């Protein structure tokens, strides 16, 4: 029951998030079409970030082949990977799949059991330009030429600004759910709209979700799960919700997406010119300001500073996230006796901990609490799953915890959490109609029929019981009746 993914990160990377932070992004991209990518790959920044989002092996094969003129051949891939030359195409495909999904390579059936993977030209060009710096699309942001004398916010200020803005939103969500009142300003209405449409928050008085009163939103279980994600994932989820909203309004989202990537490649502390960097995505840029991705000295100025939220967007691992750096994020020590020591004074983190930890002692910079059944189960009532808690714990584990032999979290605790999760639903209840047969053949015929119509819930051949979905009752009874007649007439 001990999950392999909870073991020591070096032995098995990505301990906390079974999915990478950009999981939402990946799923989004995988569903896009050729044209969409063509549009994306016009920007070198996108090519760079897409390349980095590939799994290492695939990534290196791409880089390996980037500068050669012929298309990549399956034989070559096999030789790179020391595969048997007779290895099946699937194995190669398995490795190259991410690149194919991103339309970096266009598979062409060469001979039988042989494939050619020519590069997508725009990607190849884009990546090469990214490496050589010969691009023309200004995708890395056009710096804003300011006068010498006007003041520039320091990196710390930018980080602080970004943190405040984003944590403000999170705090608002938390405080809406729990009694704890943060003195937080309500985010702008657009943000609330997004939170609502994304289903992170709902208006309890408005079950339909048609005309919610966005001032009375409360957090949903989905929202709680959102809170437990690490920062990287949260950012991308928000961005993806934003993107989807745009799509819903049938706007072209490619520009916006490529802007996200460009932001991710920008330099913290540097100011850029909005109009020249993103001529076609200005409105989106303004929206991002509300989430603290960028900072504008004055709302209508062309100058903007990306905050660490933006610049860290594409840095695959949260460790690279400036502002809340590694050891600031790793404050949890979890003992096998379920005691938790959290070296943090961050209101938000404490609030999140409070979701499933029974906080006993609270010092200025230290929280001592206990993972106990009552709190964990109450958290689970809120819709938080055991694995989410576990991932939260392991992603915030104190460096000290890495010095003890793996797994990072002690199996007993992991198991106990899973057990508590199990405990909640020991009953599986489903409406059913039971058919009780006496003749074997009739039973079997009906079972086959029910199976064919996917109406079967459960079949007990020994007792000759058949359980089927209620809505299919009539159909099945019809069938049974005529079978009965056939059989009866049979004798």
């Amino acid at each position, binding site marked *: 029951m001990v999950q*392999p993914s909870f073991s020591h990160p070096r032995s098995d990377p*990505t301990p906390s998030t079974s999915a990478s932070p950009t999981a939402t992004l990946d799923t989004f991209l995988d569903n896009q079409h050729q044209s969409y990518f063509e549009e994306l790959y016009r920007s070198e920044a996108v090519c760079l970030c897409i390349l980095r989002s590939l799994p290492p092996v695939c990534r290196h094969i791409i*880089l390996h082949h980037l500068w050669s003129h012929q298309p990549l051949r399956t034989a070559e891939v096999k030789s790179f990977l020391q595969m048997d030359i007779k290895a099946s195409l699937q194995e190669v495909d398995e490795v190259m799949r991410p690149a194919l999904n991103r339309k970096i390579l266009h598979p062409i059936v060469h001979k039988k059991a042989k494939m050619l993977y020519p590069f997508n030209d725009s990607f190849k060009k884009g990546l090469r330009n990214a490496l*050589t710096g010969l691009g023309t699309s200004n995708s890395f942001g056009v710096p804003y030429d300011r006068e010498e004398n006007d003041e520039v916010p320091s990196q710390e200020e930018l980080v602080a600004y970004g943190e405040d803005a984003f944590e403000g939103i999170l705090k608002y969500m938390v405080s809406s759910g729990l009694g704890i009142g943060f003195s937080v300003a309500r985010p702008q209405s657009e943000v609330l709209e997004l939170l609502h449409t994304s289903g992170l928050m709902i208006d309890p008085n408005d079950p339909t979700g048609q005309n919610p009163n966005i001032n009375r939103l409360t957090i949903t279980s989905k929202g709680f799960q959102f809170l437990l994600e690490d920062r990287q994932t949260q950012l991308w989820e928000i961005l993806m919700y934003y993107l989807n909203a745009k799509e819903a309004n049938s706007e072209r989202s490619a520009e916006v997406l490529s802007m996200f990537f460009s932001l991710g490649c920008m330099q913290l502390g540097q100011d850029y010119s909005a109009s020249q960097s993103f001529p076609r995505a200005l409105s989106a840029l303004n929206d991002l300001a509300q989430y603290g991705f960028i900072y504008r000295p004055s709302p209508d100025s062309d100058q903007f500073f990306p905050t660490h939220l933006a610049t860290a967007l594409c840095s695959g691992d949260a460790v690279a996230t400036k502002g809340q750096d*590694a050891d600031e994020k790793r404050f949890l020590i979890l003992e096998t006796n379920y005691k938790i020591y959290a070296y943090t004074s961050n209101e938000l983190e404490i609030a999140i901990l409070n979701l499933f930890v029974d906080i006993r002692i609270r010092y200025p910079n230290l929280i001592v609490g206990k993972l106990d059944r009552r709190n964990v189960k109450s958290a689970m009532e809120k819709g938080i799953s055991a694995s989410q808690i576990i991932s939260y714990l392991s992603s915030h584990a104190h460096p000290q915890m890495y010095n003890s032999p793996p797994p990072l979290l002690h199996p007993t605790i992991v198991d106990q959490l899973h057990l508590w999760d199990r405990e909640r639903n020991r009953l599986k209840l489903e409406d059913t109609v039971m058919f009780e047969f006496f003749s074997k053949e009739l039973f079997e015929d009906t079972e086959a029929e029910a199976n064919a119509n996917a109406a079967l819930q459960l079949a007990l051949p020994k007792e000759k019981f058949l359980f089927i979905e209620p809505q299919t009752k009539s159909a099945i009874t019809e069938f049974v009746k005529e079978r009965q007649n056939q059989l009866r007439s049979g004798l």
Partner: protein
Amino acid sequence: MVPPPPMESRFYPKTTPPSVLLVILDIHPLSWSLLSSPPPLPPFTEHPGIDKAQATPMSLPDFVTILMVFLNAHLASRWGNEVVIYGASAGRAKLLYPPPPNAVAGPSKPRPNSYHPFQLLDSRIEQGLKEMAAEEQERLENGNVKSLNEPPSMVSALTKALCFVNRIQPSSSTAAALIDPTSQDASGSNSNGPDRPETRILIINATPGSNISNSDQSNGVSGENGDDGDNNSKGQGSKGGQMRGGYVGLMNCVFAAQKAKVPIDVLSLPPPSIDASPPIFLQQAAHLTEGIYWQWNGRGALLQYLHAIYLPPPSLRHHPFAVPPQDAVGFRAVCFCHHKTLDVGFVCSVCLSIFCEPRSVCLMCKTRFPIKSIPTLKTLATYIEPIPVPDTVPPPVIQKGSKMHQINENAKKDKSKAVNGDRSDPIEID
């Protein structure tokens, strides 16, 4: 609950630790002039192993641009990857990137079409190279032309690189280990954090021949009479320093790298047409540290080769990727008396120092050897002749008559020195 990861994910790692690439770039002016204008004919025509094809000229600026793209690719291949570059010029080594703290941090304004880290790296490399070139220039104007005859001080660069590695990931044998004895198991793999970076060193050698031994042959005559001037000008440390910095130093670096599990990759630029004998000691270094040794064939395509051979981080190299097949490695040594590269040598049973000819007293530990055995050894020495070796390995260099003569007088000198028996600095023999 989470399903167990599928099979292929165990075969192909999902992520790799961030990797730090330390590049040691040989910018010896003579070597590069040789590379940029290759000689019309390969010197060793009688050697079967080399093809007579004319090498494409490769000038330092051309190569540096290629190198920059490669380094950008390294930075691009993973977030958190880092690059450190040392320049090794004649007898000197210098850190080129990251810039020294007091230096101006690159261009103030980022270019709209280049990723800022790339831009920083490239501009800084250019700047650093220019600085070094300038320093070389003034060294020449200050008149010590002989300094050009010194080999590029790879060793100095290597030591600096290893010190750097030691700083970013200290070995377990530091004060911390002294404090707690629990970290005393043979597997010293106590990592203080989720992912510690993996480091590797890439030596880009431009100097023909095994740049330690043949340096002494290259500046053989001039070096000899130059020595006195050398000694009183730069102090006696230098000569010994060169010798130690040559073979023993390199070996020490290799062992240190082995301990730190840092592979040393070697890219040897001089194509066979220029240089029939590969830098065997760099080759040994690569072999002993499980690095990759590869010699350019002088036919361009360096960019592809760099990406193909040297880009994958160590964690991916042996699996799933494969390292290119390595040549035969000559485990030759350099004798302490004349810095000759030896196939068969005479070794002091006490201190294991290596000599190219039988002698009565060990130069290092002053052990007296039995007079009786010397004649037998002498005769034995004459038996030694080069053996037919595979193409991949050069035949041992044959001494010219003049060289022989010179060595003999060296030997005399040594003997006299040995009799004086100053143990202060055993290095300053010859």
